[in-house]
């Protein structure tokens, strides 16, 4: 092993890495699985030390980005790869709530990140950490959004990049990755094929694969969605959150984020947040296990327009299932038709254009509301994680000009019978 792989970086707030399956502990290094049981490694923090330094005031005085929460992140407080990610709007969605018969609903609009998805949160952390370790090349396996973000952040940091994607991705996501000038490798296979190849490549090349050997650090970025939500609600937590699930990591980390805030003294009361998960019916291994009350997640071959959620073999599926069950949330799987309807409903009622994954989340909100799982007396936060322009194909058939007419008053009056001047 070379110097890069053996590198260890000590942060005062971090104790080391810990296996989520068997609890074995490791030093901070670019490793991602327990060498004993293959369980995923997670950053272990010194919460006592963090409690002594962090405060609401210290956070408020920090940068207007996710780096205001550096005390709870596994990177030094001077991030080296930063495009200004985070602190995205939390928007009150009364018109959507009324349509669904709900009470207080908020949209966490994470389309408003540098490359228009929540993946910027994980990449700014993964690549800042990669520079600390001394890596010169950034890489990832991606369903699209991560590809955008890794290519952009690598360009910004002057790192070479290799981004691996399934060859059937939406054109918008391919173009908005390639434009940054790194290597984009389209694999003839689905995401799970791409991911397996990357796991094997990571054993050969000394690259920072953000979702492979950088994963313990990368995954921590998702917690900032919970941190921001609580701060934006005046240091209160929602009663219920609805989160899209691909690998299951985001959902798990949002729940962890709320718990950490309490653990370091930033919340007055212990958070009791019900967590619900959203999947597309064409790729719903976690939702299926939930609905069938099974403890086994069986991998599937994805077939859905929600390509950013098309992970058939979800690495964090077991943890996501556990988070939903223990918190008393729910899980739903929605059809491609319901996904498009969900995208249009959010756009029509709230003026927010989400990608297909957002359609999955809104359709799940709708389904769980009509099933009574999400109640009108709950304060609900819905996570919209990627911009609609990335998956414009999904609504291209149903969204177009209301009328196409010659440039004349007569033609307009003929097309539109408007009584109220």
């Amino acid at each position, binding site marked *: 092993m070379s110097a890069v792989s053996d590198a260890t970086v000590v942060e005062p707030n971090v104790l080391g890495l810990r296996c989520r399956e068997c609890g074995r502990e490791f030093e901070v290094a670019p490793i991602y699985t327990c060498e004993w049981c293959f369980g995923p490694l997670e950053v272990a923090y010194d919460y006592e030390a963090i409690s002594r330094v962090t405060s609401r005031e210290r956070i408020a005085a920090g940068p207007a980005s996710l780096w205001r929460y550096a005390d709870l992140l596994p990177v030094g407080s001077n991030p080296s790869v930063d495009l200004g990610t985070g602190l995205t709007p939390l928007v009150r969605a009364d018109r959507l709530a009324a349509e669904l018969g709900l009470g207080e609903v908020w949209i966490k609009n994470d389309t408003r990140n540098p490359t228009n998805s929540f993946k910027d949160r994980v990449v700014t952390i993964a690549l800042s950490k990669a520079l600390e370790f001394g890596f010169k090349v950034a890489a990832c396996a*991606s369903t699209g959004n991560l590809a955008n973000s890794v290519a952009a952040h690598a360009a910004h940091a002057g790192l070479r990049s290799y981004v691996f994607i399934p060859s059937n991705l939406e054109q918008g996501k391919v173009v908005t990755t390639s434009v940054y000038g790194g290597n984009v490798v389209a694999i003839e296979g689905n995401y*799970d094929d791409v991911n397996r190849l990357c796991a094997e490549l990571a054993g050969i090349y000394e690259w920072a694969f953000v979702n492979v050997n950088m994963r313990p650090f990368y995954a921590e970025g998702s917690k900032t969605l919970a941190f921001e939500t609580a701060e934006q609600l005046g240091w209160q937590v929602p009663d219920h959150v609805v989160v899209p699930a691909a690998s299951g990591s985001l959902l798990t980390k949002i729940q962890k984020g709320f718990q950490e805030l309490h653990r370091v003294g930033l919340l007055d009361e212990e958070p009791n947040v019900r967590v619900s998960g959203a999947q597309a019916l064409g790729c719903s291994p976690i939702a299926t296990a939930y609905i069938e009350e099974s403890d086994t997640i069986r991998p599937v071959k994805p077939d859905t327009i929600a390509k950013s959620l098309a992970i058939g073999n979800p690495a964090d599926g077991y943890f996501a299932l556990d988070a939903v069950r223990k918190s008393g949330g729910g899980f739903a799987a929605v059809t491609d038709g319901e996904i498009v309807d969900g995208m249009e409903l959010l756009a029509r009622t709230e003026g927010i254009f989400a990608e297909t994954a957002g359609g999955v989340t809104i359709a799940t909100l709708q389904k769980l509301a009509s099933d009574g799982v999400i109640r009108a007396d709950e304060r609900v936060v819905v996570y919209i994680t990627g911009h609609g322009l990335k998956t414009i194909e999904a609504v291209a058939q149903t969204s177009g000009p209301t009328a196409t007419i010659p440039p004349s008053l007569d033609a307009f009056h003929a097309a539109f019978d408007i009584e109220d001047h």
Partner: protein
Amino acid sequence: MAVTVRIPTQLRSLSGDAAEVEVEAATVAEALKALEAQHPGFGERLFDEKGELRRFVNVFVADEDIRFMQGIDTPVDAGTTVSIVPAVAGG
């Protein structure tokens, strides 16, 4: 039949740093058993106390996940590659 088992980095301390090990086997189960016979230690890393493959261990035969085939009883032809790959996060 001779098949090749590809060893992930995390387990190469058990195979004397070898990235690939040749074994005689007709199924995945036989291949992993033969691997344990050649390099003791693999068994307890790959299987839990009930004898099931650990849930974060993925096994592929000729690049296909064995859970889409016959699991541990999936047959392997001569010259096939069996890959042991840890589960990785999504993107």
